């Protein structure tokens, strides 16, 4: 829309017509306070804090509901306005307890800030304050009624934002009160958005309440370790007796790919890190067959020597490696490089949750066809086939809902279940679970009598959508993905997104945790540059996939298995006896079903305790920063390097560290004496060493960027904390023919996680378990 010019406090500002005055002012650096106004939510005009004087209008106006107009002359900072705001604050404070010293919000409370600013500490209201006891509404949410200032932010974010509608306002006037949908409790998705958005301390979380004060924490923004959306989360940390403990997770600074959104997992399910069963020392199986604590030296030397021996006597093809969906790109890359160049095996795989290989193949030769998570918020039309974003990709679901609300986006849902997002959908087509593949062919024009008039109408509508975003779940694999992408490419400017389950499932795939695919989806048979990169031990033939490795192990023909951050014994239902002839090394946080069978167990750091990068399921690459710390654990990266070292491998060939970069460790004389290189100090503070040690992930990122052409992005942007979108394959990859893909088993086993589960790790999150159990109890009660 055309710009209009107006004058605010004597300053000329311009804003597009239709902009709200409050936004226009804030953009121009003129602060207008508001409790109830919240960008992205509907207007409330309840708090009257944003009042301004507009010339020729007799009364003060709310800037949050006034659109800018040409020639408007506005005053925002006069004595009259200050007095009005002060009076409003006095009203709000009339029954607001002055318990700031014990309130969770103290120090980051918007009401506190405003009271300081407008000096409303004195009051004409001398009546006794009306106290009410706090109430627990759910395992997560607590409500402190007297602190509530009735801004309605929680009501709106829960309803409009989350489509949960669990909060309302009841009664009238001074008796008004926020009320939960269950009468005395909440039946909701436990996302904690209401707590996060509360400007005061009326809504508090069970996880954080009364634990600390905001200024006593350090804050580190990193990436949530749970689902494939990879939300940015800002962790509040405090030192504890054995490291740095995570106290809080939120994204209040609205930075990153998710703005201020986080789901229950991102906000509260970091507590697995402090679970009492967390392993903090290596374990070795002794002569009696029991796992007993050992020193790092013992455990690594033993594991390395055994692997060395097995490789040299029985060959690399008798060794298997299973990688992780939650390790960083650098670790996954290193793991497969270690397998291929040190162990001499292509028997490497991971728990696959989506068919990224077929997706990469289908998009080979295309540029910019894979969509970022951000595009779900802006695309004019979305085709969602399969998947259940509300349960498995909460951030995607949030973006889709926002898109419908703000831009009237059209969402076409095709699913075998009545997923919740159908409520925002323009159309919902139910198909049976086995018909996804047939449906993709139907879209492409193949007639099929199982699809009726509704499906035909959908196909015709889609043909008129010029900028379609096609998002598909793990129901679609192999030929179905190819058919869908081929169909999408026949429409103008279609983009695609493939939904996988965990934070770095896509990264694991991109980094080549496959027996037949190298990093960047380069087939093992045509390794190109990798042939020389990975040295003499790199086998030419593809290796065994995960189920085959387990089968071979059961037949007694897998001499060693190295499992990094994965629990295949549980996930694939492996009988304990089938691994008895295999030398098993497991790196994990907990004594999982797999770790219990291991000969060597190495305790590892989780994603919150290390640095690197992860790629979400849409291909958004983000920086992982080390936040928490735990004595006694090490990163996967370090352990792989140390294992290679004890095996006698050339660590310099494995990790390109210490090449060409030289840190200035400080001058011995002169004005700067004693000061180390400031760059090195900064890097160290970010836990990014100046590539001087083999444990520096950025050394591996160099190699990843060098060998995977599609991983081209701005390092500056990445290190500044911005997400960088990468494609599955680059245009150059098109030259490589991926052969025989149609016969290749996709090996996808969706995790089937819900909002309240998160693989094996989720079981160790007390809060997630508590929420999950309380929900199940409710369902049982309802059923009875």
């Amino acid at each position, binding site marked *: 829309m055309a710009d209009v010019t107006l004058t605010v406090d004597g300053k000329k500002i311009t804003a597009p017509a239709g902009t709200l005055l409050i936004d226009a002012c804030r953009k121009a650096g003129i602060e207008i306070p508001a409790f109830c106004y919240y960008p992205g939510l509907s207007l409330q005009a309840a708090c009257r804090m944003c009042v301004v004087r507009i010339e020729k209008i007799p009364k003060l106006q709310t800037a949050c509901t006034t659109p800018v107009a040409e020639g408007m002359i506005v005053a925002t900072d006069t004595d009259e306005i200050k007095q009005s705001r002060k009076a409003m604050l006095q009203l709000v404070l009339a029954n607001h307890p002055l318990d700031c010293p014990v309130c969770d919000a103290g120090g980051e409370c918007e009401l506190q800030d405003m009271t300081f600013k407008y000096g409303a500490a004195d009051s004409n209201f001398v009546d006794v304050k009306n106290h009410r006891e706090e109430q627990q509404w759910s395992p997560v949410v607590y409500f402190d009624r007297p602190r509530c200032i009735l801004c309605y932010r929680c009501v709106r974010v829960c309803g409009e934002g989350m489509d949960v*509608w*669990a909060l*309302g306002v*009841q009664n*009238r006037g001074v008796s008004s009160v926020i*009320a939960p*949908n269950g009468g005395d409790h909440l039946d909701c998705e436990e996302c904690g958005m209401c707590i996060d958005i509360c400007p005061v301390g009326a809504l508090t979380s069970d996880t954080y309440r009364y634990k600390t004060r905001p200024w006593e924490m350090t804050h580190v923004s990193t990436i949530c370790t749970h689902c494939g959306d990879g939300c940015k989360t800002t962790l509040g940390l405090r030192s504890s007796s054995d490291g740095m403990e995570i106290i809080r997770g939120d994204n209040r600074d609205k930075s990153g790919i998710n703005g201020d959104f986080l789901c229950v997992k991102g906000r509260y399910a970091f507590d697995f890190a402090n679970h009492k069963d967390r392993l903090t020392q290596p374990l070795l199986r002794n002569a009696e067959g029991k796992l007993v604590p050992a020193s790092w030296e013992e455990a690594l030397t033993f594991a390395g020597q055994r692997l060395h021996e097995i490789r040299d006597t029985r060959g690399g093809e008798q060794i298997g490696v299973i990688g992780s969906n939650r390790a960083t790109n650098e670790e996954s890359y290193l793991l497969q490089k270690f397998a291929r160049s040190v162990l001499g095996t292509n028997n490497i795989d991971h728990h696959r949750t989506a068919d990224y290989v077929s997706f990469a193949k289908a998009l080979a030769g295309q540029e910019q066809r894979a969509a970022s998570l951000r595009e779900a918020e802006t695309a004019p039309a979305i085709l969602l086939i399969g998947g259940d974003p509300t349960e498995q990709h909460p951030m995607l679901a949030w973006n889709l809902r926002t898109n419908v609300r703000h831009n009237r986006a059209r969402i076409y849902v095709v699913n075998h279940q009545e997923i919740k997002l159908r*409520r925002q959908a323009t159309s919902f087509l139910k198909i049976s679970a086995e018909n996804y593949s047939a449906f993709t062919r139907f879209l492409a024009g193949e007639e099929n009598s199982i699809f009726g008039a509704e499906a035909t109408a959908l196909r015709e509508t889609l043909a008129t959508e010029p900028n379609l975003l096609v998002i598909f779940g793990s129901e679609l694999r192999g030929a179905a993905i190819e058919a869908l992408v081929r169909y999408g490419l026949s429409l103008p400017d279609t983009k695609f997104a493939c939904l996988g389950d965990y934070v770095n499932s896509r990264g694991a795939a991109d980094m080549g945790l496959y027996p037949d695919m190298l990093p960047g989806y380069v087939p093992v048979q045509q390794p190109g540059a990798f042939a020389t990169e990975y040295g003499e031990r790199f086998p030419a033939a593809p290796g065994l996939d995960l189920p085959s490795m387990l089968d071979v192990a059961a037949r007694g023909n897998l001499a060693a298995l190295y499992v990094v951050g994965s629990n295949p014994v549980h996930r694939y239902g492996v009988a304990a006896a089938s691994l008895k002839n295999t030398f098993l090394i497991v790196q994990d946080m907990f004594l999982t079903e797999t770790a219990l069978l291991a000969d060597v167990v190495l305790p590892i750091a989780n994603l919150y305790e290390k640095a690197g990068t992860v790629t979400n399921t849409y291909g958004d690459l983000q920086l992982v920063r080390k936040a928490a710390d735990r004595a006694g654990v090490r990163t996967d990266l370090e352990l792989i390097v140390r294992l290679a070292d004890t095996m006698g491998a050339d660590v310099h060939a494995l990790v390109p560290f210490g090449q060409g970069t030289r840190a200035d460790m400080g001058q011995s004389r002169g004005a700067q004496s004693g000061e180390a290189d400031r760059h090195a100090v900064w890097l160290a503070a970010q836990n990014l060493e100046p590539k001087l040690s083999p444990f520096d992930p950025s050394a591996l990122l160099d190699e990843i960027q060098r060998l995977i052409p599609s991983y081209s992005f701005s390092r500056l942007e990445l290190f500044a904390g911005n997400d960088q979108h990468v494609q599955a394959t680059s245009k150059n990859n098109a030259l490589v023919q991926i052969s025989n893909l149609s016969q290749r088993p996709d090996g996808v086993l969706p995790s089937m996680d819900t909002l309240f589960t998160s693989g094996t790790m989720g079981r160790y999150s007390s809060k997630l378990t508590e929420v999950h159990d309380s929900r199940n109890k409710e369902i049982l009660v309802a059923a009875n």
Partner: protein
Amino acid sequence: MTTEAPMKAPTIFSSELAARFDKLVALYPARRSALIPMLLYAQDEQGYVTDAAIEEIARRIGITPLDVRNVLSYYSLLRTKPVGKYHVQVCTNISCMLRGGQELFEHCKEHLGIGHKETTPDGVFSLEEVECIGACSWAPAVQVNYDFHDNLTADAMDAVLDQYRKQAGK
């Protein structure tokens, strides 16, 4: 807000009222516009807005029961607890107050032996002090259920109450 069509389910209301509700929800551009009349009619039929009525009205409109309660709790006219057979509403707003409304209310309290928002043990009368009922020209005024009684004195009030008491058995 959800746009799903409401499920067909057995109704707790009379068939006439159910039919009326069917018409009401289709009458306005937005279904929820029918909420307040529906609540009022439900109250008229059942004496107060029951939990079952809230559930059914929510289902008929396609909103959450919480949404219904948000609106319901705003209006003092709508109630969630039973009242007496005859609900005596005494206005004490400005016109009535100037003409003895407050005294009339005190008189009713004494006569019936109950206070504001209370019901007599036999369930015949309940009493409520209300805001303006729009009968200022004939103040002081009292509304019993939907019937108005105006220009009242203490004696006239007693007569009115006695008449209702006589009717109560019938």
